[in-house]
C-alpha cells in the first residue's frame, strides 16, 4: 500500500530562476535513437521541451516514387525496425486494397498466408513490446528487466531467422502473400516459446510493473487524458492507456483478426497505487497486457489448423489501377497508415506513411511542461517512440 500521493506533481518555483537551455540528445542513451530535445529549464523544472527531429531522415517517401511496389517493401523494414513485420504488412495491405479496386487485378490472399502473417506479426508485437519494456526499465534505473527482455526477444529473433532468413529487416510479408513457407517443426518451436514465455509476463510484472520505486516514478506522471490523446491524434497503446478501447484489430478487423478471440488491453484507474488514466504507468501497463493478448492469439492459431495451400496469390505483376488509397493497420506503436497514389504504372506517384510515433512525439511538449528533468526520461520511454519511424 503506497502512501497517499499529492494531488498534482506540477511544480512551480517562485521566484523563477534564470532560464537555462539544455540540449538533450541526439546522442543520448535514453532518447531511443537520435532525438534531440531542447529543454528550457527553470532550475530543475522543465518549462518547455522542444523536440528536434530529422536526424534519421532517409527519404523513404521520395525513394518510393522511384521504386516498383515490391521494391518498396524492404524500405518499410527500415521505418520501424523493431516491428518490421508489421510495417511490411501495413504497406502490403494498402497495395492489396488498391489493387482490389480493379476487378481484373484484384486477388484473394491465400488462407495459409493470412495465418502466417498474423502469427508472425503477433510474435513481432511481443518482441517490440519486450524491447519497450526492457528499455523503459533501464531508463528508469532498473537494469535487470533489460537483460530479461533481450533474452526473450532473442528467442523470437531466432524464430524469425528460421522463417525468413533475417533478424531485423525481414522483407517477409509480400504483396499477395508471404515470401517463404515455414520450415518443418516451426510451429512446435513457436509453441515451445509461447509455453516458456507466458509465465514470464507475470514474472516481469512482479519484477518491474508492481515495483514500488518504479510506480513512484511513473504513476500520476505526465497524464494524457482521453480528450488530449484524441486531439493530438495519438493511437495505439498510448491512446488505450488513456482509457480508450480503440484497437483496429477489434474495431475495424482487417485480414483474419475477426476469427480470434482476444480482449483489448486498456488503461485503468487504480487509486490504491495512485495510477491515473493516461499516466506513464498506464501506458506502460497496456503494453504488458497486450503481450498476453498476443500470446492468446498465437495460441488460437497453434490450436486451430493452419490450412494447407499456397502462400502466394496468383497474379501477373503488381500494377495497381489508377487511384489512391489510405489504409491503416494496428502496428505495435499505433495506427500505421499508408497513403498511396497510383497512376496505373508499376511505380507509385506518391507514398505517404502516417507514423504513430510522430504523433506521439508531438504530444511530448505539452506532457512535459512543469515536470522535472528526470520525468522527461520517463515520458519518452512510456510513449515508446522509434526514431526510424518518426523521421522515416
Amino acid at each position, binding site marked *: 500500500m503506497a502512501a497517499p500521493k499529492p494531488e498534482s506533481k506540477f511544480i512551480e518555483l517562485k521566484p523563477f530562476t534564470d532560464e537555462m537551455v539544455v540540449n538533450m540528445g541526439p546522442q543520448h542513451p535514453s532518447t531511443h535513437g537520435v532525438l534531440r530535445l531542447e529543454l528550457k529549464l527553470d532550475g530543475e523544472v522543465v518549462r518547455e521541451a522542444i523536440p528536434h527531429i530529422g536526424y534519421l531522415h532517409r527519404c523513404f517517401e521520395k525513394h518510393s516514387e522511384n521504386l516498383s511496389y515490391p521494391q518498396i517493401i524492404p524500405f518499410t523494414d527500415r521505418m520501424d525496425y523493431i516491428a518490421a513485420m508489421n510495417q511490411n504488412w501495413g504497406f502490403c495491405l494498402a497495395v492489396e486494397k488498391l489493387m482490389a479496386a480493379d476487378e481484373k487485378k484484384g486477388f484473394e490472399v491465400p488462407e495459409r498466408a493470412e495465418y502466417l502473417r498474423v502469427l508472425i506479426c503477433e510474435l513481432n508485437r511481443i518482441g517490440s513490446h519486450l524491447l519497450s519494456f526492457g528499455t523503459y526499465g533501464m531508463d528508469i534505473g532498473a537494469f535487470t528487466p533489460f537483460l530479461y527482455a533481450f533474452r526473450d526477444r532473442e528467442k523470437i529473433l531466432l524464430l524469425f531467422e528460421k522463417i525468413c532468413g533475417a533478424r531485423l529487416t525481414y522483407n517477409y510479408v509480400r504483396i499477395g502473400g508471404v515470401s517463404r513457407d515455414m*520450415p518443418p517443426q516451426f510451429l512446435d518451436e513457436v509453441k515451445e516459446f509461447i509455453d516458456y514465455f507466458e509465465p514470464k509476463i507475470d514474472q516481469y510484472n512482479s519484477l518491474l510493473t508492481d515495483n514500488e520505486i518504479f510506480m513512484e516514478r511513473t504513476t500520476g506522471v505526465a497524464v494524457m487524458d482521453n480528450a488530449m490523446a484524441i486531439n493530438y491524434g495519438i493511437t495505439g497503446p498510448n491512446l488505450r492507456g488513456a482509457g480508450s478501447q480503440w484497437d483496429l484489430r477489434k474495431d475495424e478487423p482487417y485480414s483474419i483478426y475477426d476469427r480470434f478471440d482476444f480482449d483489448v488491453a486498456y488503461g485503468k484507474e487504480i487509486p490504491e497505487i495512485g495510477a491515473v488514466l493516461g499516466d506513464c504507468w498506464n501506458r506502460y501497463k497496456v503494453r504488458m497486457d497486450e503481450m498476453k493478448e498476443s500470446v492468446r492469439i498465437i495460441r488460437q492459431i497453434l490450436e486451430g489448423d493452419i490450412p494447407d495451400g499456397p502462400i502466394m496469390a496468383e497474379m501477373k505483376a503488381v500494377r495497381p489501377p489508377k487511384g489512391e488509397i489510405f489504409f491503416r493497420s494496428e502496428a505495435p506503436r499505433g495506427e500505421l497508415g499508408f497513403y498511396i497514389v497510383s497512376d496505373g504504372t508499376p511505380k507509385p506517384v506518391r507514398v505517404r506513411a502516417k507514423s504513430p510515433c510522430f504523433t506521439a512525439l508531438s504530444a511530448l511538449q505539452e506532457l512535459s511542461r512543469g515536470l522535472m528533468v528526470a520525468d522527461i526520461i520517463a515520458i519518452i520511454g512510456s510513449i515508446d517512440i522509434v526514431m526510424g519511424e518518426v523521421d522515416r
Partner: protein
Amino acid sequence: MRQYFSNIYLGVYSVFIGMAITFRQLFKPSVTHQYPYEHSFEQKKNVRDIPQGYRGQLFNRIEDCIGCKKCEMICPVDCIYITTEKLPKGERLWDSMNVVHLKDRTEIVGMIEGDEKIEADTTVSIQTRERGAVEIPSEQVARVVERKPVIFYLDKFDIDMSLCMYCGLCTEVCPTECLIMIDTLEGIEYSTFDRTNLIFKFAKPEMYDKPLDEAADAEAAD
C-alpha cells in the same frame, strides 16, 4: 594498534590471493582471436548454427547464369552491375541441360534421361559430358534446375556488397536459381582491409573461349 596491522596484513594477503588467480591464467591457452587474420568460426568455437535459408552474402554460380538481368532490375539499391554481349543470331554457347543438385551440396551437369520429374525410390540416370552416364538414387537428389541455352557472353557480373541491403529479391527472381545467398558462417564474414574487395566479381570471361575482338582491343589500347 593490533587491528591496524592485521588490516594491513589482510589487505596484502587478499591482493596476493587475487594475483594468484590472475597468475594462473598465464599458463592457460589464449582465447583471443587475432580477428581479421583468424576467425573464431573456423575453429567452431562459441558459434551457433545459422539456420538454413539465412540471407547472407550473395553468390552467383556463373556457369548457370544466363545473363537475363532480372536481378539487376529488381535490386532496390542498384548494387548489381551486369554487362553482356550478344552472340550472332542463331548461335548459342550451350544448349539447354539439367543441373542436378545433390543433398551433399554437390551437383551434376547433364541431361536427365527420360522423364525429368524425379520419383521416389528410383535411380536417375544423367548423361554428362565428362563422365558419361551417371546413375544416382533419387533420394540423394535435392532439386533439379534447368540450365537454359545461353545466347550471351557475360562480360561483367559484379555485386557491390557494401551497398547490398539483403532483401533477397534478386535471389527470388533468378530463373536458373544460380544467384543465391550463402547461409553458412562464411556467408556473414566480410572483414577486409580494402573496401573494393567488397565488390564481388563473378564473371569468368575465360570460360567461353570467346573470339578476340581485335578492333575493340586496338581501340582500348589507344
